[in-house]
């Protein structure tokens, strides 16, 4: 049993929320550079250039890439061989509070969906826990903006809808989203599980490296053909028309009920932030 102190957890979370908001992952930066090369529309190319420039300014000035520094979505992997001394959830929220304050990140959380008073410190976070056989505590911070999150959905399709039904739903969702989620986007898809599992699978799909391949060859092929179709929609960078609407399309799957074909679609913008640490 290894003991992990809650202060260390808070400090790690504070550092992660700042770094995630200021420095985009390398795979995202690479995908943007490739997009700039491959985009055919002149306006679209120019938008890629502005986005790349923006990311450089953010990194050099230590300021957030986007003003919407998101709701702090946090995945915690708890190894069976670690012992956490204190209140883990409080430690995480303390970290969010410190990070959003010290990093000059925007506070975008309201206390109640109807009354809507800003909590002033970007807490609470949305936290997902998973228990694993390991002697570490792994924390992944994935701040998620409202613009792209608002374009996401869960839909319970019929088994008879099959792959074609999923394809149509994805294309309809991306088309309806248009410029709203700040394309170029990343499309995370959760297939299977049940109602809430599909949404979580979709969100987890967004954490995958953009250049990885799904280990299931059928799903890998589906990801590729969906990305091709999405990029034929013509939405393009910022929805102004172009070849590159999405940088990647990732599908995560899970077994499901004989009666159901749950589909979660979580859209992410080009400000695809996530950062992890193992304690």
């Amino acid at each position: 049993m290894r003991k992990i102190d809650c202060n260390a957890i808070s400090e790690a979370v504070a550092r992660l929320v700042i770094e995630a908001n200021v420095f985009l992952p390398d795979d995202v930066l690479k995908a943007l550079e490739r997009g700039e090369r491959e985009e055919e529309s002149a306006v679209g190319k120019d938008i890629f250039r502005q986005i790349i420039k923006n990311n450089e300014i953010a990194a050099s000035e230590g300021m957030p890439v986007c003003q919407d520094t998101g709701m702090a979505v946090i995945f915690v992997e708890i190894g069976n061989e670690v012992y956490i001394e204190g209140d883990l959830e409080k430690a995480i929220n303390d970290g969010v509070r410190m990070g959003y304050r010290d990093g000059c990140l925007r506070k975008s959380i309201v206390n109640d969906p109807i009354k809507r008073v800003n909590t002033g410190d970007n807490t609470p976070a949305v936290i997902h826990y998973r228990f694993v056989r390991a002697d570490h505590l792994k924390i992944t911070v994935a701040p998620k903006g409202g613009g792209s999150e608002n374009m996401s959905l869960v839909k319970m399709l019929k088994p008879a809808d099959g792959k074609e039904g999923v394809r149509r739903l994805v294309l309809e969702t991306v088309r309806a989203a248009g410029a709203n989620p700040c394309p170029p986007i990343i499309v995370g898809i959760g297939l299977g599980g049940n109602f809430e599992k599909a949404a979580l699978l979709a969100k987890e799909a967004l954490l995958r490296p953009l250049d990885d391949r799904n280990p299931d060859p059928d799903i890998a092929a589906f990801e590729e053909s969906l990305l091709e179709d999405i990029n034929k929609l013509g939405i393009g960078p910022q929805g102004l028309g172009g070849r590159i609407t999405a940088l990647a399309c990732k599908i995560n799957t899970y077994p499901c009920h004989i009666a159901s074909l749950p589909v979660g679609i979580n859209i992410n913008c080009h400000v695809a932030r996530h950062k992890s640490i193992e304690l």
Partner: protein
Amino acid sequence: MEIKTPLKDDVLERLRAGDRVFICGIIYTARDAAHARLFELLEKGEETPFPLEGQVIYYTGPAPAKAGWVIGSAGPTTSYRMDPYTPMLLKHGLKGMIGKGARSEEVKEAIRKYRAVYFAAVGGAAALISRSIKKAEIIAYPDLGTEAVRKIEVVNFPAIVINDIYGNDLYEEGVRAYQRLEF
């Protein structure tokens, strides 16, 4: 093309969907919560905290400024959320809006009717855009935090015309030109 605020008729007549512009002058920031309040004032026939005539509203909620800075990252937020309030503001003289994403039919109709322009800025390019903001001051609703109304002075704020007074819509035209899939 460089344009100055407040927006005058000759400028509005010159602008066409697809034009890339650099905006200079005073603009005001307002997003969801501030729009709800402005709308309520106008409905009651009361005065708004800043004059709407000829003005431009930028849909943004900036990140906090670091010490010694004018403002933090400040990119556009999605505009459709302001749609329920927008025709009323246009009716009272608002001439320009900067945001991202398509507007409702009602808003597009009001843009034509009241002769105004909707611009898009690059969503997510918030650090880059903040460099064009030279001054910022909260002039209303400080209780709303990032959603407070700020009077900001911009120099060469980069934007692109989406909807002009002639009824053109760049989102529709741009996508049509590149669409290769019917389903």
